[in-house]
């Protein structure tokens, strides 16, 4: 039901943005006056997203430990805002910038501006088309491959799959779909029965799956959801319809709720994306770059497949 929202919300959003425009938080208020303390600015896609919050928590932890002043701002999904935030970092003459990009293209000007101002900029978690000083993240195409490969193995290369997309056009959605389709091509026996967006949302994915169950019933053998929220929504719909034990559900991210889901059997697998490592590597690289030391241009944190078999090593006590 997104259409209505889009149709009616433009004016509301505009004012809402004005109202919520300035929520900055500084993690370290001690701010050594006159000292040569490093200052790093971080702009995050959305602090309402659990995974992003986890990445940020790790950045913050490490910054505090290393005595770096960290300025965090929330781009609230708006690339325009993100570019402005980076401009403001440049004006504040921070030593390095960590950006968790909102969009591949629209966030790119931020990279160009930072580089032009000779401030190193590190992209974390997702990419921009402009090449930053360094990239820390995981290869989303790989996660899609892993998820679909898991399904292919479980079904012995034969069966019907449905796929629930994230927001159409976002980097993660595009790459996860790309990876999944690569695997589908290798297995002619696997058929993509239907695919539709669930907008990263649990309730939407649940409704979508309910409708698919009506449409395809027992023809569905497996569900691949682009994130765990949607995977859990699909699993709920299947459980309610009494079909869960016959359908494989795999999703991506490895959020705590999903790990619980694997434990309970709601999810057959989740592809763990390591927020902690992304965060810590990002701040490490940023500090090195700020100090002028050598650093990795690209750090890829591998995804890990989580099933019941290896669950225990991911569950935090």
């Amino acid at each position: 039901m997104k259409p209505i929202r889009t149709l009616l919300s433009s004016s509301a959003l505009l004012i809402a943005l004005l109202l919520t425009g300035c929520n900055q938080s500084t993690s370290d208020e001690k701010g050594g006056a006159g000292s040569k303390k490093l200052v790093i600015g971080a702009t995050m896609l959305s602090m309402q997203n659990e995974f992003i919050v986890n990445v940020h928590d790790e950045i913050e932890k490490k910054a505090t430990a290393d005595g770096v002043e960290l300025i965090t701002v929330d781009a609230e999904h708006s690339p325009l805002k993100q570019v402005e935030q980076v401009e403001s970092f440049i004006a504040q003459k921070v030593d390095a910038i960590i950006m968790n990009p909102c969009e591949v293209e629209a966030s790119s000007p931020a990279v160009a501006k930072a580089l032009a101002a000779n401030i190193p900029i590190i992209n974390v978690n997702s990419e921009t088309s402009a090449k930053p000083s360094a990239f820390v993240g995981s290869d989303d195409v790989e996660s899609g491959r892993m998820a679909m490969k898991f399904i292919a193995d479980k079904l012995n290369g034969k069966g019907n799959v449905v796929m629930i997309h994230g927001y159409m056009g976002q980097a993660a959605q595009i790459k996860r779909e790309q990876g999944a389709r690569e695997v589908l091509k290798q297995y002619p026996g696997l058929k993509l029965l239907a695919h539709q967006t669930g907008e990263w949302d649990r309730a939407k994915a649940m409704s979508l799956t309910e409708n698919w169950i009506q449409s395809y019933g027992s023809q569905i053998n497996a569900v691949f959801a682009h994130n765990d929220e949607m995977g859990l929504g699909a699993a709920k719909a299947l459980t309610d319809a009494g079909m869960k034990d016959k359908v494989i559900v795999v999703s991506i991210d490895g959020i705590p709720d999903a790990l619980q889901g694997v434990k309970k059997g709601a999810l057959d697998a989740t592809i763990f994306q390591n927020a902690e490592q992304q965060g810590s590597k990002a701040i490490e690289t940023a500090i090195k770059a700020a100090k002028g030391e050598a650093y990795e241009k690209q750090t890829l944190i591998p995804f890990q497949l989580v099933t019941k078999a290896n669950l225990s090593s991911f569950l935090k006590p």
Partner: protein
Amino acid sequence: MKNGLPPSPSKTTLSYKTRFGRLGQYGLLIAFLGICLTLSLITPRFFTVQNLMIIVTQVSINALLAFGVTFIIITGGIDLSIGSMVAVTGVAAASFAHPDTYPVVVPVVIGLLAGLLFGAFNGFVITRSHVPPFIVTLGTMTIGRGLALILSKGRPISNLSDSFNFIGGGKILGVPTLIVILIVAFIGCSVLLKKTVIGRYMYAVGGNEQAARASGIPIGKVKLVVYTLGGLLAALAGILLTSRITTGQPNAGQGFELDAIAAAIIGGTSTSGGTGTMTGTLLGALLIGVISNGLDLLNVTSYYQEVVMGAIIIGAVVLDSMNQTNKN
């Protein structure tokens, strides 16, 4: 659908415009049945008891919100904060709904209470200040979203008790609880609107606030009541959503206010206030749900759904304006 909408005018004043406007009242029903019929012909999976139940289940949360919005729009107001209220109340309820902590009534009561207070706050500010509801609720929309994030520390609250999850996910005699609650709420709201003094006052306030005041109607009280009702229904929706997806999400309900407003408008509630019915709103919500379900069944991409939904809203508003023109 009689209450609030003008019944047939006298023979002598019945122009073609009036007749056409009257068609507007039934136009929605005709459109709805037409779409159902078409879908039934295209796919055999549409017109099954199970699928119809799923549609109503999926529609129920939006419908509950739309009922609240209908009260508010009838008085000539608007509430943009209901989506945020869904999140606040859902998170508040979820915080008390972990297994082996409190009995299930506790999260429910806390959620409803949160919605009641939030709605009453909206009503209080709107009646006390002379700031338009659009602005006030735009502000509380943002406040509510922030509160939900604060309460949940930005993370979903999961691991909820089975009894709590039953509220929005269970079945009573084979009928999903959501449908049962929807029917009860629909009857309650219809009775309130049609059969009570306060309901009549809502129409009067929206129809002509000055005249209502001069007729001795307590305008402030009426507005306070409608916004509180809006909050209460949003809380009910928030609790049910949380229960249905078995997790309290701080970013739940984003944009729900616009879906709800759309359902009310499609259902014939005039944005200028003074007219509208619960039956119309329910039909509006069902129409949105049927189209969404039908296009999913046909595996049409959601892009087309957006176009279709937008066209329907415009169509509904055009019908409404025809009704208005023929009144003047």
